[in-house]
């Protein structure tokens, strides 16, 4: 079983979001980049398949050299090889096209993407890779079991969950639930040392024009101060007469 885990290189969840160059670029100043949390749940599940079912796990990122530390971290967690497609990640579609090419060439059985990246929140890359490669697709996947070429997956739906039967090749959009928060692995020294000598292939991009582009970022308008009250009568009164929400 060959698994490809797509790794998005994103600002840490505690980052303050600011923009530069006339609000057209994300300000990376002082920002720490991490493996996208949804991808990390998927990577950790892939490690389970490696250890229990002998899967080979490769990780891939579309981006410049600055994303390599994030790929090295994935190698330190336990992935066997990494691939970086050497082109800036412009929009969801162009990234999906690069990933679909990697997925096809490597003949992967399972491609694990995150439900969404926490920066652009596009939530489209997994589905697009599936459609471009003709694989089955399960989004918001919170459980995945594989036996031979058959797979059982659980998907989170609005207000519950759904159990699905499908087959390989398969693409999932993973999230918390695939593994629990407590299952996530912090790379140990041995993993970090090994990661240095694991292959990190640089792959030149295929032609893939972006379909969308950000022309400008905006920050939400600053919020007014909180109105503090000291009893529930006043609160209900304000919610009814001022906020008009009850």
């Amino acid at each position, binding site marked *: 079983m060959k698994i490809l885990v797509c790794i998005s290189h994103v600002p840490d*969840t*505690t980052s303050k979001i600011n*923009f530069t160059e006339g609000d057209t670029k994300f300000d990376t100043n002082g920002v720490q980049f991490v493996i996208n*949390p*949804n991808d990390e749940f998927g990577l950790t599940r892939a490690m389970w398949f490696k250890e229990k079912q002998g899967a080979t796990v490769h990780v891939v990122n579309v981006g410049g050299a600055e994303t390599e530390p994030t790929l090295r971290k994935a190698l330190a967690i336990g992935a066997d090889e990494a691939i970086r497609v050497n082109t800036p990640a412009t929009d*969801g*579609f162009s990234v*999906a096209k690069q990933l679909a090419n990697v997925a096809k060439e490597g003949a992967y059985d399972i491609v694990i993407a995150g439900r969404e990246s*926490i920066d*652009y*929140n596009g*939530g*489209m*890359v*997994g*589905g*697009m890779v599936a*459609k471009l490669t003709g694989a089955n*697709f399960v*989004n*918001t996947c919170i459980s995945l079991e594989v036996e031979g070429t058959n797979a059982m997956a659980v*998907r*989170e*739906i*609005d207000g*519950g969950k*759904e*159990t*699905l039967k499908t*087959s390989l090749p398969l693409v999932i959009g993973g*999230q*918390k*639930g695939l593994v*629990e928060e*407590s299952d996530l692995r912090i790379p140990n020294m041995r993993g970090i040392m090994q990661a240095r000598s694991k292959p990190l292939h640089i792959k030149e991009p295929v032609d893939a024009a*972006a*379909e*969308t*582009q*950000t*022309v400008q*970022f*905006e*920050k*939400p308008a600053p*919020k*007014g101060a*909180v*109105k*503090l*009250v*000291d009893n*529930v*009568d006043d*609160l*209900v009164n304000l*919610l009814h007469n001022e*906020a008009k*929400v*009850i």
Partner: protein
Amino acid sequence: MSVLVYTESENGTFKKIAHEAVSYAKGIADMMGTTVTAVAINGGDSSELGTYGASKVLEVNNDALATFNANAYADVVAEAAKTENASVVVLTSSADSKFMAPLVAVNLEAGYVPNATALPASSAPFTVKHSVYTNKAFSMTEINTGVKVIGLAKNAYGVKENETAVSAEGFAPTVNTGGVEVVSVDKATDKVTIADAEVVVSGGRGLKGPENWHLIEDLATTLGAATACSKPVSDMGWRPHSEHVGQTGKPVASTLYIAIGISGAIQHLAGINSSKVKVVINNDPEAPFFKAADYGIVGDAFEVVPQLTEKLKAFKAQNA
């Protein structure tokens, strides 16, 4: 040229997000001087969609589509878009919509922008405002392709009445449900979901343990609200992670969000940012959540919440 909107339904009734999506599609159609066609799969009463601006409804009635199948649903929407020569396809932010949107986009070779919070700023170039960085910012994004797919953020545009003469016709697209098969669905039918809820009542570590969750549930029942929780609460297993709200959990875009015993970590605040009115009850006046809230009570949840529930019951009885 037209604007196509997918109108989601459940048990033969259109959801509120379908009304919202039609209202939004009508807004775009007016900008472009065209009309709205809705496509409904085993949907509700089509005449109802005219209220919000649909001129035509393509009704798909097919038992093979009784349970959601992303590929098959995406094919239906794409085929409807081609039949109608649609230049814009409007979807929503429901779990099903987000599942099928990338499949629709690739099929139509269309650029896709999710989480749209407003009508396009202009139609040429076609520029849409949408939330990014988990509601910590917005992006004005230009879509360069001939056909555009837009996913409308929940509770962002609102339901707008726009009475329009509407006609319905049967639509029988090619349906292929292969690949992924639903084995079972596990969904509480008696509970309001976070996705559909107008009001969400959410609890954090301040509640001290799962045995105290009746405080949250009683308040939620009184308000007809969905229950939610913070990340630590779901990590400790006090509540299922389907209730976890925040950056790695569910986003909440309710009209009213009441946070009880939640300090307000930046990741939590990001997830609830698009809720309209936020109320915080916390015994720590320094809790960061107070900076993000509209109304707050500094006090002990174990005293304040039962009082609030009682007060709201009395209020509901009076205003019933």
